[in-house]
């Protein structure tokens, strides 16, 4: 995950993007739980709403993988095919985990590197 690229793609500063991304992670984690619960209990409407919401936020942030997976869940929830959504859910969780991990790495990097802007990797 390249924060610089993602931020540039949607016209934000990196710091702003990070802030939004963190908010996303927080929100998405809750939504993921909602989806999980909804898939478990067969509540298609809740699953659809949560997936839709996550999809919107994800695509806004340029997180296509998550957006994709969420869109698939939304679609299946629409068609009341919750049983088919397990794969998409797993995928969603995996992508989300990756984003979380990469964000953590990014944060760790920013804690380690003195200045983000001064870092040659960033400039390249």
């Amino acid at each position, binding site marked *: 995950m390249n924060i610089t690229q993602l931020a540039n793609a*949607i*016209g*934000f500063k990196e710091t*702003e993007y990070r*802030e*939004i991304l963190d*908010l*996303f992670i927080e*929100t998405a*984690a809750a939504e*993921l*739980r909602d989806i*999980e619960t909804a898939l478990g209990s067969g509540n298609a409407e809740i699953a659809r*709403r949560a997936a*839709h*919401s996550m*999809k*919107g*936020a994800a*695509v*806004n*942030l*340029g997180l296509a993988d998550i957006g994709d997976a969420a869109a698939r869940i*939304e679609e299946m929830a*629409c068609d009341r095919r919750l049983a088919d959504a397990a794969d998409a859910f797993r995928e969603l*969780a995996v992508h*989300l*985990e990756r984003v*979380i*991990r990469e964000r*953590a*790495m990014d944060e*760790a990097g920013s804690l380690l590197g003195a200045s983000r802007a001064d870092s040659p990797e960033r400039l390249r």
Partner: protein
Amino acid sequence: MLLHTETHRAHEDALRGRKAAGRGSGASAVCGAPGEQAAGLTAPLLGEIIESISIPVCIRSGSDLSILFANTAAVATGVFAEAPKRFTQDGLPPHDESRYTAQQAAATRAHAITEHSWPGAGGDAQNFEIHAHPVFGPDDVPLLVVEYLLDVTDRFRVESSRRQGEANVHLVLESSPNAAVVHDSAGVITICNRKAPALLGFATKEELIGRCVWDLIAPRDRERAKLDIARMLFEEKIGDVECTLVGSGGAAFTAEMSAVAMRGRSGDASAFVVTMKDVTERKRMYEMLEKRACDLRTRVRELNCLIKLSRLIDNEDRPQKEVLQAAIEIIPSGWQYPSITCARLVIEDREFKTDNYCETIWKQASGIFVQGRLIGGIEVCYLEERANAAEGPFLAEERELLNAIAEDLGRVVMLGRAYHDLRRSEEKYRGLFEANKDAIFIVESDSLRFIDCNRQAEILTGYERAELLTMQAHQIHPARLADIMRESFLRHAADVRCTVEAEILAKNGRAIPVSTCAAPVVLGGARCLQLIFRDISDRIETERKLRAAKEEAELANKAKSQFIANVSHEIRTPMNAIIGFTDMLLDTGLAGDQRDFARTIKTSADTLLSLIDDILDFSKIEAGRLDFEDVPFEPERVAFEACRLVCPRLASKDLELLCDVDDRVPPVLRGDPFRFRQVLVNLLGNATKFTESGEIELSIDAEEIERERVRLHVAVRDTGIGIAPDKLSIIFAPFQQADGSTTRRYGGTGLGLTISRQIATLLGGDIRVESSVGGGSTFHFTAWFGRETEAAGPGATGPGRKRVLVVDDNARALEIMTRRLASLGADVTARGDLAEGVETVLRANESGNPIDLCIVDAGAAAGDACGAIEEMRKLGAPGRITIIEASPLVAREARGCPASRFDSRLCKPATREELLELLRGTTPEEASRATESAVPQRPGVGGPASVRPERRSLRILLAEDNPVNQKLARLLLAREGHEITIANNGQEAIEVFSAEPGRYDLILMDIQMPVMDGLEATKLIRARGFSAVPVIAMTARAMKGDREQCLQAGMNEYITKPIRRETVLDVIEKQAARREAV
């Protein structure tokens, strides 16, 4: 044969005759002279005798050696002859050999023998001896020589073979590697080899030969050696006898002797061969080996002792006491004489000893040290004396051994202690581990296998310990999301402690919420994790209950606030109607009383409305929904706006309102200008409320300037009634005023300061007050604002240096005005009254540097000012001096001088731009108008033209439930200078919009939202008659036909997520422009 001379003679004659006869016949006897029968032995008798002898015999005359008589055997040999004869051809022996022999005998007067050899009849060589024996007469002259021939062939053969044997013996002896001698039965050495004299220190064999062999043996060994050798010979054994030999010169050395008997034909031993070998070196070697073997035995003994000790030490399970006792009992076995060895060990206050311990003078001891400290000693005693050469009772090795043992025992003690400590520590930690209320697992990092756990772990998980130890960490950690996060957390942060909350899966399938603390540990070189799980079910439950209670309470509070907000809103609408209609009523021709009544209605309605606004804000604060904008604004402009808002309240009072903005305050900041202004207005409003005369000063400076932000300090000073110290703390509490009576006297809800303080707090600052009763009050308000990229302020475009005269009777106002004008580049002269002002104008003119601009405060111009103004105009440079009246926005009724006397009027307090325009020569009123039109309806909002020239600032209502998208949109739009209000769903959007329909230029509407979706909200807004406001749909396109649905619902435009900056901004711009066009 003693013969008388005569007899002798007779014999000689007789023999001679025989000889002659013999010679003649070959067998006739020799006949002697007749007189020679004196001895009673007649010649014939003698001849008979000689003839009877079987060996050849011949008798010669002693005088001439002539043959007197020869027997037949002699004649047959042909050996005996008168004259020398040559050898015959058949090899007969020479006759003169016989004569020669006789001559020898006669000459030496002794028996002479010559040896001869000649071929015998069989051709073999035969050996003979010719013996000649002289017989002397009475006159001791040789009378006769008796010769006889002995055939010694046999003897010779024996001799020669004996000689040969002897030569062989030599050969054998020489070939022996050892010294060898042959001795006879008497012990006399007859033969020896060359090594023998060398061994014994003699130069030659001859020196040795003839000596007695026994004499060579040292006296003390001699008899024993002789006996041993005799036994050896007797038993015919081959062996060695060791003895000391003494060689030539007395040199003694150890040798081995062996003897063999040489037996003759008879089988009797006639000689003995003795060999001798120097074994000094070998013996030395043996001795050395022996000693070494002895040493080895000692070593082995010592080693055994040490090994036993070390085995003992290694046996960790035995109590140290036993080990030490056993050790002391082992010790004697390491000494040379274990049976008389005893030992004692003292370590600190403990004593260990062997049963036979008894202190003696034959004692050795060694100290026992632990970590350099002497903690005891060990002692070994011999019960009896045992001398070990020069070494004393103990061997050097034994001393070393004792030291080694002491060292070992020191180690035992140390190990014992360490072991004990370890045991105690282990027990302690095991105790902590086991008794811990938290479940503790040790997990191997790589395999994630449990390698240990405590009792609580069993209780928590429901698994037996043995089961757990076959499991892996993830088996009790289901891979739920929280765990995915945790896992990644653990994986990335394996080197740091971390605590996360997660759930573990118990054996019965129950998920137990736990707080997990993971800490890396290294156990026996393996990287492990220590996982500590604390069951937080109770806490979670408590938290859940608390949360529920809190949510309930919040919900109730929110409902209350919501109710108030709703009611306030519901009240506002009719209030607006009341105010509007009252205004309209006042415009109609009303009778005096009616007008008064209507005016009262208007005033009351205004008051009520502001009260409602306060309550609305307060309820928003309570509901946690007080939102802040983040847009660029000009603090100075906001400050002046606030001043102007309160100006009308000053009209009826003798109050001067001053406004001073420090130059350090950046011209443009980021933040929420409305909230900023709200606080300023509130503070100024309070000041005007509680101040009857004097002045109110609003001053702003930048208290702290950082790279990204600025802390503004606003001070509002008044000269009012002040606040009693005991009331200072309560004035900020809601619904409180310093005095209940003030409410009655001054009105108000008492919410203003509460709201202001909330705002200040939310802006990272505070509000505090300094006051004294009768001494006025100063409210200090601090808040942080973001810094905006510095744009060149309007002051940069200087108007050129102008000479300005300021006349004001208020010293503070004069000072502020002077400073502000000066900071704009003017050359300012300040005067406290008009007369001085006139004087200054005159002086300036005279000095050739006339006044360009004269600003006269209305207060200073009170009374008969017209004359002075005229004077000034006359004195000033013709057509050049501009005289301006500075007066409050709402002019006081009593005016000293009509406005027409002035060139223009400056509203007090004047903004920087107004002053600038004034200096540039534009009239302040024009300047004022220009300023206001620049930002229509929303003074203070939006950046100055230089910051965002391309876009207008809009107020946008965003209906969106997802906080991510809210944030995104807020950031995006705020950067463009737009002001965003957020509604979390359709319902809220309707409420917020309906509350102030005129406020919003645009609505951005998410379609899918909880409570009420965007489509419905839009329909309702349109249904309420708000058709002008553009509504733009934002959707993450879930379904086909969305766009149509949106348009049908009354939306104007449709944006799909992802929200792209340019798209959104374009659409917003387009819609805003469209609305304006409409």
